[in-house]
């Protein structure tokens, strides 16, 4: 793993923390999706009745939010790349890898909508809550793309393993639901399956020439002042 040699400031603890909390958040969000599917599929065991699965799903989601807040704060505090706090909710307006960072903001916005509507469920009513909750199927892939596009560890084997594992879990969850007959209308089911497969396929096709390819830092929009002077690629 090569360290970026940029300017006179070395990588701070914040930089490591933001990457770590981001990774943990991705794992927690994956867990939340998996638990959510277990919940809605009504898979229970005597030791894990429905209300337990439901509680774990909620806990994983809230923990993910906590780690995301830490992820955002540490990213903003780090002086390596100037990432203002507003970039966490306002997508594509920043200077550091605007597209890929912006996807993180999009994912976070969607997640906030889901969490807030869930906390205010009683007041908003069942239908509003249910419709908003489906945004989860949008928030997760966008979060993964954000991680792959901005993550400086994306080329490492452990990061690839985590990303791949999380993707496999979410794909499996979607397949479980589709096989069980969700969404209820066959065209929607086919579309859901197609979307999942296309996403995974597209990812596989894009990764080698994208984040795993050369000069990704430059291509993804890192401000030139932060790029390593040597033409060796930074992670």
């Amino acid at each position, binding site marked *: 793993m090569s360290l970026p040699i940029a300017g006179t400031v070395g990588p701070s603890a914040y930089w490591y923390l933001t990457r770590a909390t981001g990774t943990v958040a991705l794992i927690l969000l994956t867990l939340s999706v998996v638990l959510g599917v277990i919940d809605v599929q009504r898979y229970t065991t005597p030791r894990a009745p429905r*209300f337990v699965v439901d509680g774990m799903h909620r806990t994983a989601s809230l923990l993910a939010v906590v780690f995301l807040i830490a992820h955002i704060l540490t990213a903003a505090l780090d002086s390596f790349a100037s990432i203002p706090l507003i970039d966490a909710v306002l997508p594509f307006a920043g200077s550091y890898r605007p597209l890929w960072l912006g996807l993180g903001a999009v994912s976070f916005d969607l997640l906030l909508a889901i969490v807030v509507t869930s906390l205010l469920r009683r007041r908003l009513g069942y239908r509003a809550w249910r419709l908003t909750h489906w945004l989860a199927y949008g928030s997760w892939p966008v979060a993964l793309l954000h991680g792959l596009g901005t993550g400086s560890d994306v080329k490492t084997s452990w990061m690839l393993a985590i990303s791949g594992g999380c993707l496999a879990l979410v794909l499996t969850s979607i397949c479980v639901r589709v096989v069980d007959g969700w969404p209820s209308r066959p065209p929607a089911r086919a579309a859901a399956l197609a979307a999942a497969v296309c996403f995974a396929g597209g990812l596989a096709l894009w990764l080698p020439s994208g984040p795993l390819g050369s000069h990704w830092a430059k291509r993804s929009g890192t401000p030139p002042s932060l790029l390593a002077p040597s033409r060796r690629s930074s992670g």
Partner: protein
Amino acid sequence: MTIATKRLSINWIACEGHGMCAELLPERITLDDWGYPIIDDQPIPPELEAHARRAANACPTFALTLQRTQARRG
């Protein structure tokens, strides 16, 4: 004299048979052959009230509610 009692009430159209209510209040709720709740109609005594409230809050579709009813006795 009027006695205010608390009773469980179900909106049967909203109920989808998730069954969390029966998990959280087995003293008063059991499930039928298809996973839909069978409610014991007795009023909820104070010692069960917290559990009943938790069961009502756990219902994903808000089908279960805890209602305050007035009953006249004597």
